Structures are given as structure tokens and as C-alpha cells.
């Protein structure tokens, strides 16, 4: 096939060359190109020569368009053509127009910059928290499978070993299917140094389904699921670095997990933390014969990768039919058990989490809408001033297309400059957020391995391009509308118009609607931001009913193998409390199974004198198992009666404390002396000896204080899995924390501690969302207010300026300044009232859905609503009064001239 000139170069020349010579230039070059081929110069050389000609011809052609090279005094030729023919001229003209209206130009640029910058920053933040895709190959084909019991409202019932075996035998739609769970473990590489990490238990099918290959070694084999065969371990990248300094000869080495030796067989790539923040993985033993308590067997999550060619729909259909078959084959086990299939992402990223961030994103796009509305308004307002000028130019021979193009060129310049600023703001904004996030995480004692691998805040260029592109397009649209309108105006009609703006006195319904929409959107955003800001403030000033200052804590889990008996554990606790003297500045120490704000476990309970038909009828409350000094450590006193004493130990009268919520809800009159037991039949009846304040026995911020019962740790019927060692000490923070580690280490050097933090750090872990996002929401509000006010002021100012001549006539006829100001303000206030009405209405609906985010703030907080209304009203007043007063101060004669 005969070679042809490169299309791109040809297209470039086509655009650049003036119309009158375009054909000749292109044909000349084509002729020479063909000549070169005939001479045997080769297609590549010919193309290279063609490109050289095209590039070298660009500048001379553009200079021709720009009017350079003409003899002085000669008018530029009117050669309207396509593409770049007159672009240089239009751009020059556009720059001149920008400087002619500097305030408006700056306003548009700043508005665009804020809108684009803010939106793209939040877009990238949300993208960091909510992964678009999980970081596994073709992750859309990885499905999470759960068993369900619809009659009991359970939709995440895990698979037992028996279930797993039965389902594996029957399914054909997954190429790999596996089960997993996770939990904490004490890891060490030699007898001695240990650290507590969260690890995953996996069958071989899980890593096969994820299709993530280790960087060293292998994944688990099917036989390692069998009892006694799973003495291996796969390490995560970070743990490999921590334990072995990243040594390449790590395979075959031994790692102890809860003192059990395991052989390292694989190292996973950096960032792999399946399912959430796990650092190591060991084989899950699938033993249908013995898997936990027969009445309450171990259950695990199941995940599978669809086989090639199998759709999700087909897979769901088969799984549902398997569930139906199992129900009839094994009614004792599987009666009423259904199946639910979701994407793995839906299981890993909770829906509430998603809803929150998508709400944020929607709100941010609201800000962008305001920005675009502002720009549209301002461009419309400016175009209305230039109607006469544009019409005159059209009368002098400028084509409509040329007029529209010139106005679009101005919009293009504004968009490019504004977009550039927006891009810079977006980059700076993301850096700021990352720094804030890192700072808060560090203050909360967070480790790198506690943050999911997919949570990264990267600069996604696509986000910037999308936002900038969307904004530029909307600006182009906004610029085109007035351009088309202005250029369609009859010249005579425009020239005849005595008052420069009298035809535009009403601003047009379109402009008015934009202002109303802007006010409404600003109102909505300000209210949401205000509610959030108030939550943050409340959190900062809330007086917790327990002390956090000078309180330090650490958590450990006594391994059953080393402390098999209750007496062993009690002895350890006694010795540990005795070590408090070694901690500098220590005043008091305690042990407990939970902390205020972190929550405790829950239990059913019985009150003496009441009857309950079945276990399901037992009311539930939180149960805290604490040593007597627990309340003193947190600076809490009993509201009634007393707290625990040293005398309340095993073998003495079983006692209990209740919190105020419990007393209010369940006990009438004087609760002291009433008896309660946690559980039924075998449980001890405990005498209530005191009432203590509510100490957030549920996770802090989850809303409300639950009913709670405290029992002495030494009298507890079961031992806690995790134990918190809490010390109140006046010494320096670092020294105290080190001493706590030393105190525990001196009793059991193999026992790892975790969450060794000041209590303030614990609280920050629970409330990190507010310092991190609180600032962001407050920024929402400020930006929304700024854009709303700018929009109002800009349009009002322009509209008022247009009426300068009219004002002059009125003043000449005797009107006073005050009356004129009132005249102008009336329209602005109507728009404000409409916008506020709509905004408040929508805010009332929307705020209710965001209530779960608020801390101690009602979604219809009257102060916030009133404050926002007042702020917007004030902004609108300023936006109308200032330009109105300015016009009335102008000299009557000048005003009449319309200059």
C-alpha cells in the first residue's frame, strides 16, 4: 500500500494554515512527499520530512493570522476560517476584555479556582477512603458468600466446617472457594521478644481466589487445612521487615504464634492486608468433626472467584438452589438457612461508611454547582452590558459565529486561569488533608499496619481532569448562552436602547433563577457544615464523666496455655497491681475488661423478683469486670452507695454496681440491696451495693449510654479475653508508658502488650473522624458562604450598575438616595427569601439522614438553622446595599450620561 503523509501533521497544517492558501500548501507538500517516495527516499524519511515541514510552517502561519508581517497601516484581512484562523486575535481580544472588567474577571477566576480545587480535593479524599476497586486482579469477579437466617434477621451467618465441605462438594460456579477468619496473636521469632498482631486464618482457596502472588515462597496448599498439617505461616511485608529486616532467606525460618512454632513459607507483597489490616496468615483448619463447641461451632467468612464464563447471576442461581437442597437434605442443620452473594468490596467496606462518603461527595458537587452558577450569572450579567457593543460589531460586518467565538475565547481564558488555580488548590488541599490525617493517627498511636492497604490518598489526575473538564464545559455553556443572545440582537434595536441596561433591568428569569438556586444551595451546605462544626466543637468541649488526664493504659491477653486456671490469672493480676509502685508518679492502678468509651461486653440478666419465660426474654445490659480501684483510677465516685472494695473478692458476698441508666430503667426507688444475676440458674445472685455514673459502656459516640452492671474481677464467673491495665500517674508520659511495659515484662517477658497509650490517645482513636473531617466540613461552610456571597454580590453589583442611567433620571426628577436604595434592594431580598425558603426546606430533610454523624447535636438544631439564615441574609444585604449606595453617590450628570 502506498505510504501517505502522516494524518496528524496534515491535520495540524490544516488548522494552522490560512484558508486562502490551505489547499495549496497541503497539495504542495503532498506532491513533494510523493516525489520523495518516487526517488526511493523511503516512507519513514518522507514522513519525518513532512512533520518537519508541518512544524516549521506553524509559526509563520500563526503570525499571518495574528496580523504580523503586514505593512503598517494595513488593516488585517478578514479571512474567517476554521480552527486557529482567528484564534490568536480572539484570545488577544479576550485578554483585553478581561482587563476591562478586572473585578468581574478576578471574581470568576477565584470562583472557578475554589470550586475546582475544593471538589477535586474532596473527590481524592473520598477515593482514598472508599476504594473504587479492591487491589486484587479482576476484583469484580471475587464474591463474598454468606449464609442467612431471614426469620432471625441474620444476613451474615458464617460457614461452619461442615457447611464448607457440603457447599464445596455441590458448587461448580467458583474456580476457587475459601473460608477465612481473623484474630489477634502473639508473635515472636525467638523465645523472648513478642508483639501482638492481627492475623488471618485462611484456607488455600482464599489466596487462590484473590490471585495475589507472594513475592517470596508460596501460598497455602489444600492439605494444610487438615488437622495437624497447618504448621506454616505467611508473613505480610511490613511484619517481614519488622521481624527479619526484610532478609531474603526468611523462607523456612520459624515464627512463634502464641508460642506455637510455625514455618515461614511465603511473604506477601507490600500493601496486602486481607481482609482488612492483617499482618500474617496461617492455615484455617477445617475439621467437620471437631470445630469448636458443637452447640456453637466456629464460623467463618467465605469468598470465591467466579469460574471463567460464569456470570454473577448464574452463580447466585446455583447457590440458591444448593441452599434449597441442603434445607431438605439436612433439615436439622439447615432449616431456614438461605444464601446471600455480594461483591467482596461490599463486605469489606460497610454500607454506612459508603453512604457517608458519597454524601460528602454529593455535597461537594453542590459547591461546584454553586461555583458554576456564579460564573454563569456573572457572564450573563456582563454580556447584557455588552449587548450594544456586540450588536454594533455585528452591524459592521462581524459574523455571528465570529462574535460567539470571541466571547467563548474570553470564557476560555477565564477557565484556563481558574482551572490552573483550582489544580494548584487541589494539590495543596490533598497534601493538607494527608498531613492532618497522619498527625491525628500519630497522636492516636496508630501504626501503619492498622490502616487498610487500599486506603491511600493519591493525586488522581483523572479526578482533576474530570472536575476541571466539567467546569470548563459548564463555563463554555454559560458563556455561549449570553454570546448567542447578544449576537442575535438586532443592531438597530440595541443601538436605539437609550439606557445601556434598561432592557436588562429585570436581569432575565434565567439569572434570577440562578441566584435563587445559589442561595438555596449555599443555605443547605452551610447548615450541614454548621451541624458538623457544632459536633466538632461539642466534642472539644464535652466534659467526660471520667478522667483522661494523667491516665495511661495498656492491653494484653493472657494465653490460656500459660494461665490455664483462674487462680493463675488472679495471681498474675495481683502481682501486676503490686507493680504500680515502680511506675513514676503512679497514684493508683486498676484492671478491667474494658475502658470508658471503649465499651464492655454485654450479657443477659435477671432481676430478683421478676419472672422471665425463656432465655430470649432476658433483658440485656453491658457487663464490666473491674478491680476495686477502677473507679478511683478514672476519678469516678459512686452516686449512691459505694464502689467496690478490697473485701469484695472471691468467696465473699457477691456484689454488683449498676450505672445510672440501669437504675433508672430497671430499678424503682432505692436500688441498694436489690439483687441481680448475669445469666440464669447457675449464675450468682449479686447484691447491688452502689450506683455509679454512666461511663459510656458502649463505644463512645455510638449514641446514648447503655444500661450497665459492674462486678468485681475477682468475683467474675468468666475471665475476660482482653485485660486493660490502667494507671493514673503524674510522671512524664513517655516514662510512664515505658514503666508499664517494664512492669508487665518483669512478670512475663513473653507477654506482648498492645494499645499502650495515654487515655487521651484512646479517646482520639474513637473520635478521629471529627478532628480530621471537622475541619473539612468547616471549610465546606466557608467556601459555600464565600461563593454564595460572591455570587450575590457580583450579580447584584452588575445589575445595579446597569441601572446607573435610570438612577440618574430618578435623581434628576427628585428621588432621594434612600428611596433608590430601597428600590434596588427589593429585588435582591425577594430572591434571598425564595432561596432561603427552598434551602431550609431541603436542609430539614437532608440533615435527618446525616444525624448519625453528629455528636450531641440534633439534626434540626435551631441555633444552627438560625445562624445560617442570619449569615446569608447579612451577606445578601451587603451584596445589595453596597452597590446601590455607590450608584446613588455618583454625580447626576454622569449618571444620566450612562457612563
Amino acid at each position, binding site marked *: 500500500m502506498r505510504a501517505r503523509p502522516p494524518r496528524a501533521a496534515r491535520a495540524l*497544517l490544516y488548522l*494552522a*494554515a*490560512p484558508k486562502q*492558501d490551505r489547499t*495549496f*500548501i497541503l*497539495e*504542495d*507538500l503532498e*506532491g*513533494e512527499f510523493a516525489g520523495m517516495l518516487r526517488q526511493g527516499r523511503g516512507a519513514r524519511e518522507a514522513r519525518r520530512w513532512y512533520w*518537519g*515541514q508541518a512544524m*516549521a*510552517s*506553524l*509559526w*509563520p*502561519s500563526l*503570525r*499571518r493570522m495574528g496580523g504580523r*508581517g*503586514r*505593512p*503598517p497601516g*494595513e488593516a488585517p484581512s478578514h479571512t474567517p476560517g476554521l480552527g486557529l484562523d482567528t484564534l490568536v486575535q480572539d484570545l488577544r481580544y479576550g485578554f483585553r476584555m478581561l482587563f476591562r472588567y478586572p473585578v468581574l474577571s478576578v471574581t470568576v477566576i477565584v470562583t472557578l479556582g475554589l470550586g475546582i480545587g475544593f471538589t477535586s480535593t474532596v473527590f481524592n479524599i473520598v477515593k482514598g477512603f472508599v476504594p473504587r476497586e479492591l487491589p486484587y486482579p479482576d476484583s469484580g469477579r471475587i464474591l463474598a458468600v454468606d449464609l442467612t437466617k431471614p426469620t432471625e434477621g441474620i444476613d451474615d451467618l458464617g460457614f461452619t466446617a461442615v457447611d464448607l465441605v457440603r457447599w464445596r462438594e455441590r458448587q461448580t460456579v467458583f474456580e476457587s472457594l475459601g473460608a477465612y477468619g481473623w484474630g489477634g496473636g502473639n508473635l515472636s521469632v525467638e523465645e523472648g521478644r513478642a508483639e501482638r498482631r492481627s492475623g488471618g486464618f485462611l484456607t488455600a482457596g482464599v489466596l487462590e481466589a484473590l490471585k495475589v502472588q507472594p513475592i517470596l515462597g508460596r501460598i497455602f496448599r489444600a492439605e494444610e487445612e487438615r488437622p495437624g498439617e497447618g504448621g506454616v505461616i505467611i508473613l505480610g511485608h511490613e511484619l517481614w521487615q519488622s521481624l527479619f529486616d526484610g532478609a531474603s532467606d526468611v523462607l523456612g525460618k520459624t515464627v512463634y504464634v502464641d508460642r506455637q512454632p510455625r514455618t515461614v513459607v511465603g511473604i506477601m507483597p507490600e500493601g496486602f492486608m486481607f481482609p482488612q489490616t492483617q499482618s500474617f496468615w496461617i492455615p484455617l483448619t477445617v475439621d467437620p468433626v471437631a470445630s469448636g463447641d458443637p452447640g456453637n461451632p466456629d464460623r467463618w467468612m467465605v469468598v470465591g472467584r467466579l469460574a471463567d464464563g460464569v456470570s454473577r447471576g448464574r452463580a447466585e442461581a446455583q447457590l440458591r438452589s444448593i441452599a434449597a437442597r441442603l434445607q431438605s437434605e439436612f433439615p436439622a442443620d439447615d432449616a431456614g438457612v438461605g444464601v446471600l452473594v455480594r461483591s467482596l468490596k461490599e463486605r469489606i467496606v460497610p454500607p454506612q461508611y459508603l453512604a457517608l462518603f458519597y454524601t460528602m461527595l454529593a455535597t461537594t458537587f453542590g459547591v461546584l454547582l454553586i461555583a458554576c452558577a456564579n460564573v454563569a450569572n456573572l457572564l450573563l450579567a456582563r454580556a447584557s452590558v455588552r449587548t450594544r457593543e456586540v450588536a454594533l460589531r455585528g452591524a459592521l460586518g462581524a459574523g455571528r459565529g465570529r462574535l460567539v467565538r470571541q466571547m467563548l475565547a474570553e470564557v476560555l481564558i477565564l477557565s484556563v486561569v481558574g482551572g490552573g488555580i483550582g489544580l494548584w488548590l487541589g494539590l495543596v488541599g490533598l497534601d493538607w488533608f494527608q498531613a492532618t490525617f497522619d498527625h491525628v493517627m500519630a497522636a492516636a498511636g496508630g501504626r501503619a499496619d492498622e490502616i487498610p492497604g487500599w486506603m491511600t490518598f493519591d493525586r488522581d489526575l483523572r479526578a482533576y481532569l474530570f472536575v476541571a473538564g466539567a467546569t470548563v464545559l459548564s463555563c463554555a455553556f454559560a458563556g455561549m448562552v449570553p454570546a448567542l443572545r447578544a449576537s442575535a440582537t438586532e443592531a438597530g434595536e440595541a443601538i436605539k436602547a437609550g439606557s445601556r441596561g434598561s432592557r436588562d433591568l429585570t436581569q432575565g428569569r434565567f439569572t434570577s433563577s440562578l441566584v435563587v438556586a445559589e442561595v438555596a444551595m449555599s443555605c443547605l451546605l452551610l447548615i450541614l457544615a454548621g451541624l458538623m462544626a457544632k459536633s466538632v466543637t461539642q466534642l472539644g468541649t464535652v466534659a467526660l464523666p471520667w478522667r483522661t488526664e494523667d491516665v495511661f493504659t495498656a492491653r494484653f491477653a493472657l494465653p490460656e496455655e500459660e494461665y490455664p486456671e483462674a487462680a493463675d490469672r488472679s495471681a498474675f493480676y495481683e502481682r501486676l497491681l503490686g507493680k504500680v509502685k515502680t511506675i513514676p508518679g503512679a497514684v493508683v492502678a486498676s484492671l478491667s475488661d474494658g475502658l470508658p468509651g471503649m465499651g464492655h461486653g454485654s450479657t443477659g440478666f435477671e432481676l430478683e423478683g421478676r419472672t422471665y419465660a425463656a432465655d430470649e426474654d432476658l433483658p440485656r445490659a453491658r457487663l464490666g469486670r473491674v478491680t476495686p480501684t477502677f473507679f478511683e483510677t478514672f476519678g469516678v465516685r459512686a452516686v449512691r452507695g459505694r464502689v467496690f472494695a478490697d473485701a469484695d473478692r472471691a468467696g465473699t458476698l457477691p456484689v454488683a454496681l449498676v450505672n445510672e441508666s440501669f437504675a433508672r430503667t430497671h430499678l424503682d426507688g432505692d436500688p441498694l440491696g436489690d439483687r441481680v444475676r448475669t445469666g440464669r440458674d447457675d449464675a450468682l445472685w449479686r447484691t447491688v451495693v452502689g450506683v455509679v455514673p454512666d461511663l459510656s459502656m458502649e463505644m463512645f459516640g455510638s449514641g446514648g449510654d447503655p444500661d450497665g452492671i459492674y462486678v468485681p474481677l475477682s468475683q467474675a464467673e468468666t475471665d475476660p479475653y482482653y485485660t486493660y491495665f490502667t494507671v493514673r500517674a503524674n510522671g512524664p508520659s513517655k516514662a510512664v508508658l515505658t514503666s508499664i511495659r517494664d512492669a508487665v515484662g518483669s512478670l512475663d517477658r513473653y507477654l506482648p502488650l498492645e494499645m499502650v497509650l495515654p487515655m487521651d490517645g484512646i479517646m482520639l482513636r474513637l473520635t478521629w473522624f471529627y478532628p480530621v473531617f471537622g475541619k473539612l466540613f468547616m471549610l465546606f461552610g466557608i467556601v459555600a458562604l464565600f461563593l454564595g456571597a460572591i455570587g450575590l454580590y457580583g450579580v447584584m453589583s452588575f445589575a445595579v450598575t446597569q441601572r446607573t442611567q435610570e438612577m440618574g433620571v430618578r435623581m434628576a426628577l427628585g428621588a432621594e438616595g434612600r428611596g433608590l436604595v430601597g428600590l434596588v434592594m427589593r429585588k435582591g431580598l425577594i430572591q434571598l427569601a425564595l432561596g432561603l425558603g427552598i434551602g431550609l426546606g431541603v436542609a430539614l430533610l437532608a440533615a435527618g439522614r446525616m444525624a448519625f454523624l453528629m455528636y450531641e447535636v440534633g439534626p434540626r438544631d435551631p441555633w444552627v438553622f438560625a445562624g445560617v439564615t442570619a449569615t446569608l441574609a447579612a451577606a445578601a444585604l451587603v451584596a445589595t446595599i453596597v452597590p446601590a449606595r455607590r450608584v446613588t453617590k455618583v454625580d447626576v450628570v454622569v449618571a444620566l450620561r450612562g457612563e
Partner: protein
Amino acid sequence: MVSRGRWPSHWRMFCKGDYYSSPLQNITVDRGEDVSKGAHLGEFEHLVLLALLRLKDDAYGVTVRQEIQRRAGRRVAIGAVYACLERLERKGYVTAQVSDPQPVPGGRSRKYFVLTSEGGAALRRAREMMDRMTEGIHVDAELEAL
């Protein structure tokens, strides 16, 4: 244009009518035309006009470009050639004519350029200017002595 050949410099200074120069403004004028700055030929314009002179009836974009490249050893872009020709056309030194399509299959029109008398005069002026500048010196010898 009157002057031909080499005139003594002082003669050129004071001749009137067809040709005079003002020592104050240093502007050379011909036949009363105001030959201001724009009328002097730039180097490339000079080359293009000379190419047209050589090519006579066969001067169009490609041939002009090739002629300059072959004779002056200067690679030029086709866009620059057309830009220059347009400039010369505006100055009146060149006229353009679009031919009929060539009588061959796929034949196309060409835009031919022809030197006008004004263009010729400009060429002459440029040559005379060069002559005056080099009068009395042996350029090669002087260059070798540098």
C-alpha cells in the same frame, strides 16, 4: 527608477527628482514614493523574489521552496514561503494567479506567483544598495584579512 550603474556618492546625495536621500532621515526615496521602512526587502523576501525571477512562469510554492534550498542551501518551510509571498503580494511586488486544474487524472490547480514591476524595482534597489555598500572595497580580500 533612474539610477543605473554606480554613481559617485556625493552625486547621489544631492540629486533630485528621481532619486534623493535625506542625510537627516537616512531614507532613500525613489520617484517621490515614500519608501519607508516596510519597503526595504528582508533577506528572505529577497531570496523569494530572486527565485521568482529565475523560475519565471513556473513559480509556485514547491518550486520556490526547492529553488531556494538548491541555490541558497537554505531549508525553508512551505508555510514560510507562502507567508512571505502573501507579504510580497500585499506590497505589490508579486501577483498571484490560480491556474486551471492540470489536464491529468487527479490534476489540481496551482497558485502561481509572478514578479511585478514594483517587485523588480525593489530587487533593483536592493542590488544597488548592496553595490553602494561594497563600492570601493574588495570584499573577499577584506574578509580574508579579518
